[in-house]
């Protein structure tokens, strides 16, 4: 494994009065993929949001390039693409407009053509002119995922990206992820579906059962 870009040290997250995990440490280098496993409510989403800097951890450190992310928000955000349970799309805008706004804001200089190509790749050619609102669940998610093709971020954090996608789209997304990892990118993802994400240096992280009594389970990270 290359030099670790992302390092998590002794992370502890608490929601309400519930400790989700503690003493969680792992590190991730270029060209690797981390698959976070765990039953419902085990804290996968919380972990991913903490890494993205959207949730404050109780204790522990999250470092990017050796420095804590909270100290270098702008730099870290430039390297990060987070897609959560929410679609993160403006439902009144069309898919094209949504992507264009994100591309502009992230500072990357993206041509009309590239946006169209991304939408096309995700099979949305015939609904570029429709507001996202009227699209089907799967089509909405495809629009959100099309961002993956447009933003040159190093670290992708994907929280259940396969939800609502049909078989063809799942296949496509897997290809996109594999290509990203192969090109030296990093991906952290969770999914409950059985999909074959075998690529690069693959790590699995298992978060514990969501049981009341058994709060502070040791998290097991195993190298593939």
């Amino acid at each position, binding site marked *: 494994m290359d030099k670790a870009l992302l390092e998590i040290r002794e992370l502890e997250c608490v929601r309400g009065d519930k400790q989700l995990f503690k003493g969680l440490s792992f590190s991730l280098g270029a060209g690797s993929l981390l698959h976070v496993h765990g039953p419902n409510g085990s804290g996968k989403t919380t972990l991913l949001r903490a890494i993205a800097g959207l*949730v*404050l951890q109780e204790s522990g450190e999250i470092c990017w390039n050796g420095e804590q992310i909270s100290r270098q928000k*702008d730099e870290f*955000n430039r390297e990060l693409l987070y897609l959560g349970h929410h679609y*993160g799309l*403006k439902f009144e805008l069309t898919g094209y407009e949504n992507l264009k*706004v*994100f591309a502009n804001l992230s500072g990357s200089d993206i041509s009309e053509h590239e946006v169209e190509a991304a939408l096309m790749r995700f099979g949305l050619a015939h609904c570029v002119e429709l507001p996202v609102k009227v699209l089907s669940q799967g089509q909405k998610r495809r629009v959100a995922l099309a961002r993956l093709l447009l933003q040159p971020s190093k670290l992708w954090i994907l929280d259940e990206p396969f939800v609502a996608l049909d078989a063809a789209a799942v296949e496509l997304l897997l290809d996109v992820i594999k290509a990203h990892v192969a090109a030296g990118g990093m991906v952290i993802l969770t999914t409950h579906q059985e999909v074959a994400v075998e690529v690069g240096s693959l790590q699995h992280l298992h978060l514990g059962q969501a049981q009341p009594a058994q709060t502070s389970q040791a998290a097991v990270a195993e190298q593939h």
Partner: protein
Amino acid sequence: MLATLRCMVMRDLTLAMRHRSDVLTTVFFFIIVVSLFPLGVGPEAALLKEMAAGVVWVAALLASMLSLTRLFADDYNDGTLEQLLLVPQPLSLIVLGKVLAHWIISGLPLVVMSPLLGLQFGLEGDELMMLMVTLLLGTPVLSLLGAIGAALTLGLRGGGVLVSLLVLPLYIPVLIFGAGAVTASAAGMGADGHLSLMGAILLLALVLAPWASAAALRISVE
């Protein structure tokens, strides 16, 4: 920097144009609120003329405040706000862009409409002018201060009413100087003092409010 600002302003204006009625409805709300008063109070011309400035200003406050609730709420609900927080640009700049768009959509039309409403209440010439000028100076302040309230109440149930609770007290100085300037000029006294005070408030708000709203947003999204 300017590119980011322009992108945000254009985005929000595009969104508003998608529903052109948005722009119209704020103005109409303003008109309707102003028109409600004579219905409640009665048609006596002298009484109405005396209340005119106050009523128009209160209506402007309410109209601007009502449209505020939506300033960040849409972005919050569909998860775009989360994404905006992750954009590698200063958040206060993004906020400023949104506020600017909000003012263009909901503040500027009020300024344009105000002389017509003033006429209905029997205001004339100079008073109408003064009403317009004070609104021109005052409505951006309303949008800027309002953004703080909107950011703080984000995602809370009952945000609409809560935001007014937070924001209206902040609006009061603007209201007093704004309506005061009109009344003063109607009474033949100079209103320069009022106007320069409003200018100062505007500058202060322009510097501080985007920054405060950005901080509030970070708190609300967690």
